[in-house]
């Protein structure tokens, strides 16, 4: 049974390891994955703890559906207090790690303490061992994974590892598995590094009995057909996320030159079709690959075609690498994007964050806020490909004054750089924004302002808002599983009704993250994809647990509120530019300069934005300060937290 997978508590200071079953009552309240991780974080992280100290608990988990007969249950979730934001740290990755961990007997790990010297955790069919990792320290993410396989003599071992960026405590270092699957955001790799934990390796051959196998198999077939028949997913399956990047750029919703522009000119060499050509030339016509059990196969394989890294194999690039090494630094060569993507995958660092940090530094350099003295002579202009890639090395290895400063994340760096550098930092809660521009889309602006882990598109973004769907269809999607009869607008420049969409998406994505499935399998990019109405069947056929759509909605609400409780406890206040639900002033003051007529010249209206946040808080059951009301706490059964049941 999926439900007999256990939780393990691993203390790296003492070496103590304890395993426990996960009670069914806990499952019914938090499901698993990110939701249950939020419960564990709130219960195990001491208030105000140092994110890089031994007290900060690191949670690694699979969803409740991990490795069951459902589609794309590949997602691994990682949570801790973030060393980047000082608030909620949470990141999610695909690949094959979470299913393997489930076959090895576990759904959740809680890792505390700090090992005296580098170690890795080895989990094999219910057994857990802490092993020496001295020989792995300094190795890249892939070298580490292959070395563990060689040491233990099993090619099927899956590992979640850190690279050199995590070892050097770069505050946005990530955790990786496989070639390019990255739990990218909020610096979970630095938390592993701070614990001297190089990797968690898993391998399992333990049965997961499916509650209703025939139904699960048949429903999975039907479910997959629904997923792959969506046009957006067949396009993803041939071009990957670069296709979204290309479309966003054509329209003018792409953050460029650190928010100076919203569209990249001269992007011919890095358009999705060009990248597809490179993949075809270097790998062959069948160059798409996927995560466990997923038929979307949204990632390309490629070899770097030229330059100092020519011939190196990697996967991607995703939207974020095109933003980080293309639009943001205004570098126009495919070679640069593909090399940058390879470097971040090897170092184990969040491509989104590092690209934003370098673009920010480039703007500061051009403004004279930093000079060649701070850059150690590096000519950090926009469009300087060599300088861009050199900065990637410097940050990941903390080389030079600027590399070391930027490795600490945006807000600490702005304090060290001084002057008015902070004004140019496009962040919320200390985390940089995706390489997208939300000035023409109030719904998306509200999403990044209020997302629980900082400026982020995967927590509550109503991306389908850009499709101008008829109101009837919007009502169908957003009017269930709980009724909603307020305003809803097909026009993406409107402010009306958007708070409900953001609230709905916030619950939808939380549910997905609890199940452990991918967001391409829900209402993220495709309006017709499965959501609350469909999941109860998947859960029932696979685990035997019965839920109604409304019950799943409530679970998602409960877990979202737990994340909010954690953030409030750690110091979130509504209008704090550094720790609140507030956007950089440039969203309100600087009009978008380029793009289609429905974006050029637009800013976010301060008053209307404030009203949106008010309404959003109201939907969430929070007061005007963004605090959770006692009625909401009671309704969701959270007034006894921390309850220390697990």
């Amino acid at each position, binding site marked *: 049974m999926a439900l007999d997978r256990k939780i393990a508590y691993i203390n790296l200071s003492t070496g103590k390891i304890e395993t426990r079953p996960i009670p069914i009552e806990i499952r019914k309240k938090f499901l698993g994955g990110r939701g249950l991780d939020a419960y564990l974080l709130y219960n195990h992280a001491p208030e105000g703890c140092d994110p890089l100290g031994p007290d900060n608990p690191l949670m690694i988990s699979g969803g409740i559906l991990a*490795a*069951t*007969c459902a*589609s794309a249950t590949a997602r691994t979730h990682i949570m801790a207090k973030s060393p980047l934001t000082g608030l909620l740290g949470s990141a999610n990755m695909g690949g*094959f790690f979470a299913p393997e961990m489930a*076959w090895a007997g576990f759904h959740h790990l809680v890792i505390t303490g700090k090992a005296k010297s580098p170690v890795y955790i080895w989990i094999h069919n219910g057994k857990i061992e802490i092993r020496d990792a001295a020989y792995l320290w300094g190795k890249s993410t*892939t070298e580490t994974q*292959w070395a563990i396989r060689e040491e233990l003599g099993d*090619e099927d071992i899956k590992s979640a590892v850190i690279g050199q960026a995590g070892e050097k405590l770069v505050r946005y270092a990530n955790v990786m598995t*496989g*070639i390019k699957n990255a739990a990218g955001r909020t610096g979970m790799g630095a938390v592993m590094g701070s614990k001297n934990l190089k990797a968690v390796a898993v391998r399992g*051959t*333990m*049965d*997961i*009995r*499916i509650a209703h*196998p025939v139904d*699960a*198999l048949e429903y*999975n*077939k039907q479910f*997959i057909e629904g997923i*792959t028949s969506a046009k957006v997913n067949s396009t993803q399956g041939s071009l990957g996320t670069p296709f979204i990047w290309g479309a966003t750029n054509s329209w003018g919703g792409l953050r460029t030159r650190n928010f100076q522009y919203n569209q990249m000119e001269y992007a011919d060499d890095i358009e999705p079709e060009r990248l597809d050509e490179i993949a075809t030339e270097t*790998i*062959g016509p*069948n*160059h*798409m*690959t*996927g*995560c*466990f*059990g*997923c*038929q979307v*196969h949204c990632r390309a*394989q490629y070899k770097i075609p030229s330059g100092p890294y020519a011939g190196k*194999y990697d*996967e991607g690039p995703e939207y974020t690498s095109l933003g980080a090494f293309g639009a943001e630094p205004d570098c126009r060569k495919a070679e640069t994007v593909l090399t940058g993507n390879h470097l971040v995958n090897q170092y184990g660092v969040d491509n989104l964050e590092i690209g934003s940090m370098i673009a920010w530094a480039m703007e500061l350099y051009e403004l004279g806020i930093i000079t060649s003295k701070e850059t150690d002579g590096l000519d950090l202009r926009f469009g300087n490909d060599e300088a861009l890639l050199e900065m990637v090395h410097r940050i990941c290895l903390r080389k030079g004054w600027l590399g070391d400063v930027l490795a600490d994340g945006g807000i600490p760096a702005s304090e060290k750089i001084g002057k008015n550098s902070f004004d140019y930092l496009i962040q919320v809660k200390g985390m940089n924004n995706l390489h997208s521009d939300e000035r023409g889309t109030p719904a998306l602006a509200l999403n990044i302002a209020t997302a629980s882990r900082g400026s982020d598109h995967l927590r509550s973004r109503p991306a389908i808002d850009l499709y101008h769907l008829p109101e009837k269809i919007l009502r169908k999607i957003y009017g269930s599983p709980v009724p909603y009869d307020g305003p809803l607008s097909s026009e993406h420049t409107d402010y009306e009704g958007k708070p409900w969409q953001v609230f709905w998406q916030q619950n939808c994505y939380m549910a997905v993250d609890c199940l452990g499935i991918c967001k391409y399998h829900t209402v993220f990019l495709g309006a017709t994809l499965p959501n609350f109405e469909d999941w109860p069947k998947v859960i029932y056929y696979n685990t035997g647990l019965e839920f109604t759509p409304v019950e799943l909605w409530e679970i998602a609400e409960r877990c979202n509120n737990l994340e909010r409780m954690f953030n409030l406890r750690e110091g979130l206040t509504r209008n704090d530019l550094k720790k609140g639900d507030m956007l950089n002033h440039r969203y309100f003051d600087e009009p978008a300069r380029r793009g289609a007529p429905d974006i050029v010249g637009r800013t976010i209206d301060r008053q209307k934005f404030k009203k949106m946040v008010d309404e959003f808080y109201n939907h969430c059951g929070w007061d005007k300060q963004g605090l959770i009301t006692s009625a909401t706490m009671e309704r969701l059964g959270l007034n006894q937290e921390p309850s220390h049941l697990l």
Partner: protein
Amino acid sequence: MEKVLTVDFQKCTGCRLCELVCSVMHDGISNPARSRIKIVKWEDEGRYVPMICQQCEDAPCKNVCPVGAISRDADYGFLTIDHALCIGCRSCVSVCPFGAMSYNQVDKKVFKCDLCGGQPQCVRFCDEKAVDFVASDNMTVKKKRDAATRLYASQKHAVAIQEHV
């Protein structure tokens, strides 16, 4: 008509959905260790090869079995194990040149591909058709056409270059 399972490894995306549905179909359990198909991977270069039972004509597993527990299915032509006769000596596991005969340590039984009784689930779930189930009398027709297409294209290309020169 007899049909056979074929593999075009270039089409495999490495997702291992086939391993999942195979084990669920046969045992009602998700566990790749119970799967009759396995995707062998070279992750560092992105190569994935589905390994299946070839249902050999002169089958080593059948030949080696000391109790004659392995026979050929009359309708579909696959090799099948009679567990009433099988003594669990695993000789078949040793001799199979493809590693397609497996042993389940929980049930203490050997197991192999039985084409799901004529409806292989791995094929049904593989959108890419990296594994396919085709009539044995024309299993190479598609391959011939693919190769011919490539030849034709390269010939045209060669002619174009010649003319250009």
